[in-house]
């Protein structure tokens, strides 16, 4: 355990922006990406969606839905996964992992909505779904749950900014107490909403059985999406932890550092079990739907790559890593699993979607669509850094010790 002093903003010096102006490659790259993203944003909103995307009538949903929405929501599953493990299942030794997980989950969802605005033809009309609710639509369920869950996450997350701001605005201490008292209610509410919309992101494709390749289409798509989101949640906690240790190590307190490895091992073990059961689910579903003959086709090979290389392999790596208590192996497994989740969502939304359309007419994202996705990720990282530099996320605020 090392002894370092964490910069904790005080009443006289609330801001700690020095880190952003350091001349480091990370900051430079961030600046470049943000400028490019800003320019593309202006083009997108003045020239139309077609000006920077390769979307067409056959492929109305591309990179922005496949990555920003499907992957974004799934990879933000760490929020519900960690809070349930800690508060509901009583695994108190995960406590230091809860706040970082909630922070990233909140940012993840907030930027999913942000990124969605790029993809919508009428972004300002997004609230129309509440005025003209199309209740037969899966998308309505997704929208309603994401909106509600984003609110829940905001309330759960609000404890951190309130601890930061309470030095200037003492009334926040009272509010913070109310939120902390609601923790368990919010957690259970959160897991209900997460179950609903994680699964219904899969249900979105149920309406298009003819368009999605049979190896990926299944009446159990919602279950696959939900189960894989649990694995994604566990993996993302490890994955983000890895980067956090690289970038913002000096904002972690002794408790966080002491518990970090145990969190990695426990979550690896959980992820190993979930990934194995996910593998079995998918495999049995493939057999039951009589899709075995498809395995000899090109798509079949690709399906096997996904299932063996990005579901089974990370499961085994996780199992070995947690058994041998090998942090780097667990982290490697988490990278593999996160890639696998992204691959799966890409397959469902883009690669295996419209599989029966001639190759020449298939959708391939334009470079600018990818740039916007990178821009959104960079924004998340930047806001995350701002939060970590200012708010007690990776450390406990001295004024609120033992308050949990």
């Amino acid at each position, binding site marked *: 355990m090392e002894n370092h002093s964490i910069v904790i903003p005080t009443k006289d010096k609330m801001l700690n922006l020095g880190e952003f102006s350091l001349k480091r490659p990370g900051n430079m790259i961030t600046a470049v990406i943000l400028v490019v993203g800003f320019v593309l944003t202006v083009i997108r909103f003045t020239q139309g969606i077609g000006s920077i*995307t390769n979307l067409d009538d056959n492929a*109305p949903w591309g990179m922005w839905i496949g990555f920003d929405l499907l992957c974004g929501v799934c990879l933000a599953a760490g929020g519900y996964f960690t809070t349930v493990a800690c508060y509901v299942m009583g695994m108190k030794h995960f406590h230091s992992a809860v706040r970082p997980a909630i922070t990233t989950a909140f940012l993840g969802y907030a930027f999913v909505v942000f990124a969605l605005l790029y993809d919508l*033809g009428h972004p300002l009309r997004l609230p129309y779904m509440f005025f003209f609710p199309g209740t037969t639509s*899966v998308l309505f*369920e997704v929208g309603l749950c994401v909106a509600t869950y984003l609110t829940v996450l905001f309330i759960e997350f609000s404890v951190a900014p309130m601890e930061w701001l309470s030095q200037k605005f003492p009334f926040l201490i009272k509010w913070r107490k109310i939120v902390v008292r609601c923790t368990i209610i919010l957690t259970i509410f959160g897991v*209900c909403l997460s179950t609903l919309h994680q699964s219904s992101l899969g*249900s979105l494709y*149920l309406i*298009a059985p003819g368009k999605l390749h049979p190896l990926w289409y299944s009446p159990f798509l919602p279950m696959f999406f939900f189960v894989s989101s649990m694995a994604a949640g566990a993996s993302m906690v490890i994955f983000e932890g890895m980067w956090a240790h690289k970038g913002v190590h000096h904002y972690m307190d002794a*408790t966080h550092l002491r518990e970090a490895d145990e969190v990695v091992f426990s979550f690896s073990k959980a992820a190993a079990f979930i990934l194995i059961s996910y593998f079995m689910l998918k495999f049995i579903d493939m057999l039951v739907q009589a899709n075995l003959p498809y395995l000899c086709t090109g798509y079949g090979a690709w399906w096997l790559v996904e299932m063996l290389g990005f579901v089974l392999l990370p499961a085994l790596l996780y199992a070995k890593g947690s058994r041998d208590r090998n942090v780097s192996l667990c982290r490697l497994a988490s990278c593999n699993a996160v890639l696998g989740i992204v691959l799966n969502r890409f397959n469902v939304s883009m690669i295996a979607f419209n599989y029966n359309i001639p190759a020449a007419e298939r959708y391939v994202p334009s470079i600018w669509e990818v740039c916007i996705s990178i821009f959104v990720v960079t924004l998340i990282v930047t806001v995350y850094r701002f939060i970590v530099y200012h708010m007690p996320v990776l450390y406990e605020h001295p004024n609120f010790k033992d308050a949990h």
Partner: protein
Amino acid sequence: MNRRKFLTILGSAGVVSALGTAKVAKASATHTFPYYDNSYGVLHDTSRCIGCRSCEEACNKINNLPKPDRPFDDLSVMDKKRRTSAYQWTVVNKYEVGGKEVFRKTQCFHCNDPACASACFAKCFSKQPDGSVAYDGSQCVGCRYCMIACPFYVPGFEYDEAFDPLVQKCTFCETTRLQKGLLPACVEACPVDALTFGRRGDLIKLARKRIADNPGKYVDYIYGEHDAGGTAWMVLAPAPNAEAAIPTANPIDAGHTFEKIGLDTHLGNRPMGEYTYGALGTVPMIIAFWPLLFGGAYAMTKRREAMHKAETESVIKTAKEDVATAMDAAVRTIEQNQGQQAADEARKAMVEALKAREASKAEEHGAHGEGK
């Protein structure tokens, strides 16, 4: 209450009660059997179609769509397969069936139970009693889920429009012509009667009659009678060869022919929206049971913690009592052997030692407890 209605209500019960709207049931309240028998439809007889593109031109004109790059009398555009788009609401494509050229016009099929309407989360699409599927762009969010959902790849989106991009598709000329008692523009323009307008029930009878009256001419199947839950626009296909008479017409042959003219025969006879009802039906279940499940897990955790705490406390208490008894015994022995003063001193020393030990333990525990 039929199954669909039941599931719709079930699926939306949670949200409806949350929003306080009772509009939901209305969407499915028009379901009566026979299904849209009296609403309008069009029968497209592809054995008659000559691929002149007059329908395309008429559609373009009545709907004020932008002029295409190549004129409508340029038939070479049909060398490439085209689909409908925001600016072309109907297109004619050329196919080959049994060595013969067959042309098929495509447009919105105006499903009985449209996938787009089921998929739209802002209620832009509605099946009208006259048979058309209407789209109201004024509340369209532009999410394009309707385009994902449509099994016929019909709706197009105005990707190049910056500020008011909308989904566009064939309207059945509902407001421009049907309501004035006129035929849809494409039907009126057709020079060879390949398109027949009428009530859906009548069109099915007419199609059956054509198949029966011309043995060997048609595939014995009316595409759209049941496909995807039934459509207002239906298609007849020519038999691949003259020998295929009706009695032997087997469904697999029919499928092959329709596939050859670009129609998906694997859609099944259920409305596409029904594929999602099972998933939507689980929503109230999850809302009802998940809090119970996780609340129960939480209660168990709490109880386990409380029991653990009580157990620890009782162990500590017993240990303390043991120490006290042992101490008393020791002090009594000292008193007997060395007198009262020695015993007092020994007791004092022992109490102090215990206190010091407890203090150090508490400190250790405190340091550990900070993490919580």
